[in-house]
Every structure is written in C-alpha cells, then in structure tokens.
C-alpha cells in the first residue's frame, strides 16, 4: 500500500512538472513557430504544431514593415544614457549618504525613501505636462533623466557602502591614501556586486521600456523598440506570422543575455522586488 502511494505521488510529481514546463514553454514555442510559418499555415485548421519549411523572410518582412533600426537605435541610446546617468547621479549620492555626516542629511534621505513609494504610473501625466511646457517632448533627455536617479538604487548602494568595515578605511587613511584613492581602490571594488546587480536591472527594464516612451512622446523620433514592435500589430494584424517574427527579433537578444547571466539576473530581480 505504502509503495503504491509513493509511486503514485512520484507519478503526480512528474505530471505536475510536465504541466508546469508546458505552461512556460508553450507560449514561447508558439511565438517562434508562428514566426516561421506561412500565412496559410498560420490560419489553417486544425493548427499545425510544426512546420516543414521555415519562412526566414518573415523576419525581413517585420524588419521592413517598421523602421526597425531607428527604434533599436533609440532603445540603445536611452538604455546607455540611463546607465550613464545612474553612474553619475546614484553612485556619488549613495556614497555621500553612507560616509558623510552633514546638515539636512536626514531630510534629504527621507526624500529618497519617499520616492521609493511613488510608482511611475502616478507621475506620468504631470511630468508630460511639464515636458509640454518646457518644450522637452520627443527628446532623449526626457526619457533618460527621470530614471537617472532612483530611490531604491540609492538606498541599496548606500547599504553596501556602509558595510565596508571602518578598519579597512582607517588602514588606508594611515597610509595617507586620499579620499579619491579610497573611493577607487576600496569602495568601488567592494560595491561591484551591487553595482552590477543594479546595472543589469536597469539594462533590462530600460530595454523593455514601453509605457513612458509611449506616453511621453508624440512622434516616432525617440520611441523605443517595444513601441515600434507594437505598431506591427496595428499595421499587420492580419499577418500574425510577421508580427510574431518582430516579437522574436525583440525577445531573442534579451533571452540570450538571460542564458549568459542567468544567476545575476535572477538575483537582481529578486533584490528589486516585483516591478
């Protein structure tokens, strides 16, 4: 009886595992399969679960249907700009919050904590109006600067800088190392894991960014790849194979990065909570 129960529970586990794998693999499989089918195969009934001839030209069709390179360039500029901006603004601020005492520190840090609680979806409308008034609509700057500082990132980096043991700093000071030498040779190296975690998170969210590039623009000038790809759907809705080919082109680079840096990416997202 017991052996029977045990093998039943093993069988149950295998079945559930198989079901879970299906749930997470099938959408991706269907995306790729649709992207390489002909239109005839896409609409035929019953649907085919494989294809005999891979239609590579679907990718070229998707590439030609929208200004793919333009959107890719915008995504790259905005992603790189955001990373650079964060290095310029977040690193110094979190270092100062961790290592200096100064008047008003508590008040300034409470601003940091407060902004951790404010989701972007609350401020997209007033910021849009600000951009209209300042004439900043459809500029790279408008999609970079708001994300060049981030309350949660400052908070986390500050924690990291605070954890550097005082004894190491004392030793460096006794060696007459200057402040900048201390920062470059001790502080930054010790913060590398946190910095790369934050950078990975920023890279992925910025590359995938859709809401703000859509809301804060009125022309295609600085719109990102996700916004461009979505236009495939409205212009080519009757050609799902081309639409899916476009989605594949956008998803595959990020999946490749995931395969390479799987552990760090999972850590980054678990750290940053759900966003």
């Amino acid at each position, binding site marked *: 009886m017991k052996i029977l129960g045990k093998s039943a529970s093993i069988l149950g586990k295998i079945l559930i595992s198989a079901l879970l794998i299906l749930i997470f693999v099938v*959408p991706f499989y269907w995306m790729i399969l649709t992207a390489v089918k002909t239109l005839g195969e896409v609409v035929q009934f019953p649907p085919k679960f494989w294809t005999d001839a891979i239609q590579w030209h679907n990718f070229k069709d998707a590439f030609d249907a929208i200004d793919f390179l333009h959107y890719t360039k915008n995504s790259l500029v905005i992603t790189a700009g955001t990373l650079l901006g964060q290095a310029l603004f977040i690193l110094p601020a979190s270092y100062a919050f961790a290592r200096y005492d100064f008047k008003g520190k508590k008040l300034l840090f409470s601003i940091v904590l407060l902004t951790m609680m*404010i989701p972007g979806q609350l401020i997209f*409308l007033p910021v*849009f109006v*600000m951009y209209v008034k300042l004439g900043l609509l459809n500029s790279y700057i408008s999609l970079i600067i708001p994300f060049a500082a981030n309350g949660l990132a400052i908070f986390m980096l500050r924690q990291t800088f605070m954890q550097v043991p005082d004894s190491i700093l004392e030793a460096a000071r006794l060696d007459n190392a200057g402040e900048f030498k201390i920062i470059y040779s001790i502080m930054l190296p010790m913060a590398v894991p946190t910095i790369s975690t934050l950078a990975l998170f920023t890279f992925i969210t910025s590359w995938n960014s859709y*809401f703000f590039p859509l809301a804060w623009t009125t022309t295609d000038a600085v719109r990102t790849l996700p916004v461009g790809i979505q236009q495939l759907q409205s212009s080519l809705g009757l050609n799902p194979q081309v639409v*899916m080919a476009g989605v594949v082109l956008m998803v595959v680079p990020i999946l490749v990065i995931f395969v390479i840096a799987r552990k760090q*990416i999972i850590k980054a997202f678990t750290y940053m909570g759900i966003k």
Partner: protein
Amino acid sequence: MERSVRLKPRNGERTGWSMARPYILVLPAIAILAVFYIYPIFYNVYLSFHSWNMRGSMKFIGLQNYLELFKSADFRQIIMNTLVYMLMNVSLTVVLAIALAMFLRKSTLISRFIQTLSFTPNIISLVSISMIWSWLMTADESGLFNYVLSFLGLGPFGWLSDKHLALFSLVLVAIWKSVGLNALIITSSLGSIPDYLYEAARLDNASKSATFFSITLKMISPTLFFLILMNIISSFEVFETINVMTQGGPDNATNTLVFSIYKQGFEYYRIGYASAMAVILMIMIGLITVFYFKALEKNVHYR
C-alpha cells in the same frame, strides 16, 4: 581647493570644500527625485482643479472634475474593474506562488529548471508577452487555447472579446508573468525557516496541513505580506496588457484607472479630468502603503 582634498581634514577642521562636498555629491540626484517624483505629485493635484486641453491657458474650475467623476457611471465601472482585477490578481498570484514554491522546495535538477523557466517571463517586455498572448487567445479556431480546450469539450471562449471573461484573461497573463518571481522570493523565505520547528512538529505528530498552516505559512508571513503589497501596487499600475490586448474593451470591461488616465489625457487631451483620476489613484496607493507600514509596525511590536 586641490590642496584641501589631499590634506586629510582633521577632526573639527572645516574647509569650504569638505563642508560642501556631501551636498555636491547628493544634490544632483535629490534634484532629479524632487523634480520628477515629488513635485509632480503636487502639480498633479493642482492640475486636477483646472480645465486644460493642452492649448491656450488653464482655467481654474475648482472641484468640477471630481464632481464629474463621481457622477460618471463609466468611472464607477473603471474603479470596479481596477479593484476586481487587483483582487483576482493578488489572490491568485500569491496562492499559486506559494503552491509553486512548495512544489519546487526540494532543490533538484528539475525543480531548478522549472524555477528558471517560470522566471523567464520577467525579463521579457510586457508588450511582447501581451502580443504573444493575444495570439494564443485568438477567439476563432486558429487560437491555440480554444483549439486545445476543444479536445476537453470546452469552449470556444472569447478570451478577449467576451466582456465577462476579458478582465480574467488579463489576470492570467499577469499571473504567467509574475508567479515565477513571486515563488522565487517565497522559496528564499522558506529556506530560512529553522529545521527544528519541523522536527518539533514531527515529534508532536502534527498533521501535514497543521504543519503547513502553523509553521510554514506563519514563518513566511512577513514575506507574503510584502508580496501582497507589491502585487496590489503592480495591479493598480496595469497598462501594457490592456493597451495591447483589449484597448479597455469590450464594452469598457477592461478599462482600468491607469489606462483611462492615459486615454483621457493623451487621446482626448482632458488633462484636468485625467489628473483628478490620478489623484484618486494616488490616494488609493497611499492608503494601502500607509496601512501596510502601520500593520508592520504593530506586528513588530507585539512579537
């Protein structure tokens, strides 16, 4: 300037540079946060008392935007949709994430594989996910879901075209995207439950369900509490799936707050009216956050 950098400032010694340095390092970042996150909150409230179509000058109209909102049947439905979406999404995501985390608790090759697999949707843009799922949920026979379900004698369902089903379909997409990450966070919390608690339960001959409820769930409750807050806030923020998959339809059935703020503001240029809705969203998120921290404080005190 240069000299005082090299000179190690002694205790009590105050050079101009060493006094100014922290501010120079901190203020640029603080300026961004203040300009793009704090100020807009107030500006938003200001806008909500005005009427403006992005051309000409703003007109102060007092509470009229709010009065119009409260009279509008559409707005009542938008609030209902937002709340129903949130309740479905939060409860299902958290319950399924607990189940998934328990199932994957023993670290084996296959459980680590499923863990990674279920995490994957998190790194892909929600737009791509929405486009893939609109295709899977196609209402006619070529839609994969309807085809597969037809073997079980079910359907066909109008996943996105049936007004009683569409909101739930969007919840399904949200769950598919985030259940893996939720489970991962729960798994790391499960790992920190000390073994002696389970040994004590075994010695007491506690049943499996009693062990689960009075040890496992209790020990991970701070994590669950945090996840519930995060899921509530991310439910309120839902936009991408709606914009790509349903456009708020059919018949307003999937029109939620953020989507409708976007529509009113960016398509009909009713800035003041949209701002009034944003103020209401802000109050909802604010109340829930305050409630969370109050409850957290209380818990810490009584422990």
